[in-house]
């Protein structure tokens, strides 16, 4: 069935600013399709972002949208959600925005298990500022600030968010938009902190410089370096090196442990006293 | 009354600030009497130096802190060494008996009231922690009807754990007796 994605987009703001071959548009596309598949009210939906290429995404979306400071989107979103738990609050962030400068907010958003849906655009590089390495840039990769190869260890945000208490953790990849839509939908419907990392491609600032090639080759790379989570579980450890599991990685359904629900219990305890 | 300044000094954990708050709350109920309560303390919750101040005045209290105390309490040697030289000419300095006052400045020597505060709290009340309440008993006798003792007792009752009210009343009364 054809989906009218334009009803969720600010058409007058298009075309977007992203480079040809960038995966951000694919993520946006999958997101609005996912929203369309849920019964969430667009009037009660807020999309929040930080700084960077991903930060511009909310501007194209026809909801209440907030483009904040670098790394802080989850902190702003926490205020929006707690002040009015009726709202569906979506955070769009990048790998630099969400795991470096905003890493602490990510951890504590997970820990609170507040009902936000966080989609992290992981293109493994700081794109907007011209290709500096991020915490997600693989060790050894070349970036403008790692001209001799990146000596930092990259890290796994799926492991991080799961350990920190997120109750829905998944990973998608832009080579598989149908799966992305499915994961986003599940994340949106999940009551609690949902984190969906999305492997994304930056041909201009990453692929080209690391001899992976253009957008098509980068999508091929994704396909070659990912396996379904169910398969990954059964793989011997030595084969897991450099391979990313895709799909729902962790899920715990316990709506009562969600942060705003817990706070509401405190409020209700006072309301009862008054009765 | 005109401006009257009280400074309570001791170590963190001795309840100086609580004693200051209790005095200030007792002063609330006195018609026309204004009160400010301030404090100065270090990073330690226990130990370190702690100082609470209470200023009473029937008029408006502009400067909220003690300039020169009319009534000074020093519960530790360190507090005495630090604050023991500042006192109004006709002021009263209450010090715990264990404090060595041999080095006290000439101009304050005659105003020192050395009392077994810690000993009373530990031995007669049975809890060292009540020393600050013993102190309030002493101060109550010094300031007389400026703040009636029943107000102070009432304020103590409102501030201490319910189970310890009786013990604290005893501490207060023993403090009063120390001064009488």
């Amino acid at each position, binding site marked *: 069935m054809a989906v009218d994605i334009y009803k969720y987009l600010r058409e007058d703001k298009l075309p977007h600013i992203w480079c040809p071959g960038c995966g951000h548009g694919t993520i946006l596309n999958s997101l609005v399709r996912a929203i369309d598949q849920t019964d969430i009210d667009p009037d*009660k939906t807020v999309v929040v972002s930080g700084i960077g290429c991903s930060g511009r995404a909310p501007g194209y979306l026809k909801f209440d949208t907030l483009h904040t400071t670098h790394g802080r989107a989850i902190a702003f979103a926490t205020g929006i959600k707690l002040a009015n738990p009726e709202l569906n609050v979506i955070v769009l962030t990048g790998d630099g925005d969400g795991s470096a400068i905003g890493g602490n907010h990510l951890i504590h958003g997970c820990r609170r298990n507040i009902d936000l849906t966080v989609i992290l655009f992981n293109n493994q590089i700081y794109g907007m500022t011209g290709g500096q390495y991020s915490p997600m840039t693989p060790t050894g990769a070349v970036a403008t600030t790692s001209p001799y190869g990146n000596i930092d260890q990259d890290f796994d945000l799926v492991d991080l968010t799961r350990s920190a208490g997120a109750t829905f953790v998944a990973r998608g990849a832009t080579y598989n938009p149908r799966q992305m839509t499915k994961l986003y939908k599940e994340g949106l419907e999940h009551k609690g902190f949902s984190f969906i990392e999305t492997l994304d491609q930056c041909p201009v600032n990453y692929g080209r410089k690391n001899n992976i090639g253009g957008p098509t080759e980068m999508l091929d790379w994704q396909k070659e370096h990912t396996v379904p989570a169910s398969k990954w579980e059964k793989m011997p450890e030595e084969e897991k090196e450099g391979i990313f599991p895709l799909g729902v990685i962790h899920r715990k359904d316990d709506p009562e442990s969600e942060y705003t629900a817990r706070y509401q219990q405190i409020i209700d305890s006072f309301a009862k006293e008054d009765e | 009354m005109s401006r009257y300044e009280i400074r309570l000094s001791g170590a963190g954990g001795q309840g100086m600030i609580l004693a200051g708050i209790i005095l200030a709350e007792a002063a609330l109920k006195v018609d026309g009497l204004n009160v400010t309560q301030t404090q100065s303390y270090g990073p330690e919750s226990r130990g370190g130096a702690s100082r609470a101040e209470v200023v009473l005045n029937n008029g408006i209290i502009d*400067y909220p802190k003690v300039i020169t105390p009319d009534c000074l309490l020093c519960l530790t040697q360190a507090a005495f060494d630090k604050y023991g030289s500042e006192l109004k000419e006709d002021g009263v300095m209450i010090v715990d008996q264990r404090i060595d006052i041999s080095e006290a400045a000439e101009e304050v020597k005659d105003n020192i009231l050395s009392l077994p505060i810690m000993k009373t709290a530990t031995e007669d009340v049975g809890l060292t922690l009540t020393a600050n309440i013993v102190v309030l008993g002493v101060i109550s006798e010094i300031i007389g009807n400026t703040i009636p003792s029943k107000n102070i007792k009432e304020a103590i009752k409102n501030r201490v754990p319910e189970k310890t009210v009786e013990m604290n009343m005893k501490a207060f009364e023993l403090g009063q007796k120390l001064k009488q």
Partner: protein
Amino acid sequence: MSKKEAVLLQGDLAVVEGGMAAGAEFFAGYPITPASEIAEGFARELPKVGGKFIQMEDELAGMACAIGGSLSGKKSITATSGPGFSLKQENLGLGIMIEAPVVVVDVQRVGPSTGLPTSPSQGDVMQAKWGTHGDHPIIALSPSSVKEAFDLTVKAFNFAEKYRQPVILLLDEIVGHMREKVILPDADEIEVWDRKRPPADADKENFNPYEWTDDLVPPMPDYGTGFRYHTTGLFHDKTGFPRGTTEDAKKLMDRMTAKIENNLDEIILYDEDIREDDNIVVLSYGSTARSAVSAVNEARENGLNAGWIKLKTIWPFAEEKVSKLAEKANKIIVPELNQGQLIREVERAAKGQAEVVGINRYDGTLIKPEHVLAEIEGVK
């Protein structure tokens, strides 16, 4: 708390009482001496009235979260001290740019850095004005007593809501931690202002969230009410979207500045006691004002022609008022718990018409009345 009865109230808790009286619904912050009592107070009080409190992972998250609460339509506040105020500057800038009503309390302690955590200072006066990068309007209020802490918290919320503007409430450790006998007003005696929201029948499809209204303060819809509007820290036009033009940048800056500058009569608050013949004026704010008033009273008893003015609004600065004072006075004395911050504004406003002299302490100790008196008497 039963009203109309004298209570012994701490300054930090007067901020809580004032906030609740002004209709505060949301607090987000991070613990810090000497402001933690404010967080603790809101944590106790807010859920009782259906409001929300949250302790965030750091100071900048506290600022961000409070702004988020405001965008959801709730009256929001955060509180901190100098080190945290430094961290809050980033998101304070966003609050100014998107015109979010929010109250930011800074209970000043001695800095720089960790400084003297439990000692008073007025060292953040310039930071309140210029702490976040770029030119911007700001309102900063500074109480000198527990009662004023209550009153100015109400004002801070009112100004924040009316002008869609972050408002700084600058206490110092003395006012924050001091307890005083106060009688709080009844609810019906307190004027409470709410932000202007677009009417329910507004054309949501063609709504411009940053429209140039006559008062230069655009009506602000709550998130989730169907306006589906965009908010960004980039310079934007009336639609809320960035176009990246120099024209938009200037236009927005000019409007944000003018919405405050056009209302100085309402925003600039001060108390004064200056008689016709007083040729020495002590200008002060915050806890220092207590020593100033005390010194002036004593100087008058000694037959000197001295008066005082106490600024409750520090920013925007009472430039016109001080300029007028300088025309008449020979000398303006400015005691401050810093190396001389607001005195620069006084000098600027005085334009050389009166001698401007500072009394400065920056070691965590209050300026005593005798120091101010000595400076007054120096003229004799």
